[in-house]
């Protein structure tokens, strides 16, 4: 999108400058977006979950491994349509990581067993190269009954 805008407004100096400042495609990081689903005893907020994911990655791979994985929690929310068990809460979210560290991050996610005393389990629904694709994956789970 940005490239297109720069092209069509190539007369504009500011746009040209902006285009020059963008990272060239060859240097851009390759990322993967993991769509995940979480079941827990009670509702967990985003901050608690993020702390737990970070703890898990640091304890499994250490500081260098965590820096290589370039992990970032894009979004996380409660899945309100979830039915099923009475005392279960379900949430879905998207996590970003480096393209070659997907299995490592997956293992780290699987190692999480509780967050502030609440038992939980995480399942990766699917992996995508774009946020749009990942949100499509989460949408399939949300619509599931």
């Amino acid at each position: 999108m940005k490239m297109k805008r720069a092209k069509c407004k190539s007369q504009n100096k500011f746009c040209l400058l902006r285009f020059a400042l963008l990272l060239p495609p060859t240097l851009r990081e390759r990322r993967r977006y993991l769509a995940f689903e979480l079941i827990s005893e009670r509702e967990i907020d985003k901050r608690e979950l993020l702390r737990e994911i970070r703890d898990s990655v640091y304890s499994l791979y250490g500081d260098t491994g965590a820096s290589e994985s370039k992990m970032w929690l894009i979004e996380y929310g409660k899945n309100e349509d979830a039915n099923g068990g009475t005392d279960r809460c379900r949430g879905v979210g998207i996590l970003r990581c480096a393209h070659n560290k997907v299995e490592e991050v997956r293992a780290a996610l699987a190692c999480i067993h509780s967050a502030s005393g609440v038992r939980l389990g995480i399942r990766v629904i699917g992996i995508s190269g774009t946020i749009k694709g990942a949100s499509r994956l989460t949408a399939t789970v949300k619509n599931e009954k």
Partner: protein
Amino acid sequence: MPTFKFFDLNVHAYPETEVPVEELIRVARRYGYAGIAITNYDEVVKGKEGGQLPPSIANFAFRGIEIRAKSLSELKRRIRLYYGKVPLIVVRGGSKELNEAALKNPMVDVLAPPYGEHGKEGLTHVLVRYAAENDVAIEFNLNAIIHSRRSDRARILGKMRDILKFVRKYKAMPVITSNAHSIYDLRAPREMVALASLFGMQKEEAVHALSDIPEGILEKKWKKKREVEII
């Protein structure tokens, strides 16, 4: 990735834990399993109705038993008691003598050796050789990795790495199980494969240990051959 039938051979449910079997099955189905084996401790199941599974779920859940014996004579007596009555006999390992007795016994299906819980006793290369001869599968309990941290986990992973080396050398059968006590302990098959890679298991190996080997154990594929040979 071609579709595999994944099985989890060590799941604990009611009456040993508070989780009803139906709930575990619903979550396991959602996660993509083709079947789970409910292996409660034999002493808990004894004399209770929960030992039998309802027929409606018989094609998904298999009944097993986990034997936790303190002495050799007790172990032998209990194995003989359950052999032929339940499709799956799992023995929880302990001391070296107990592991040896379980691995020398062809009636046993799976041995669940202790990983770091009891300290030093592990499996030696001699014991794994017995396992290969008698077609006893060796369990890799991923719950131990999930529920431990730091030095404990490092010790458990180290021990698993050692055992995996012997298993590869003598071509014994590895089985990956979740040893879940609740629905929150269950993990999807792909996650199990990722966790298995932590102690050096290749992806193909891990998929094999989650699908073909457990299926063969439930069908008694290898044991049948042995029975024919004996006759």
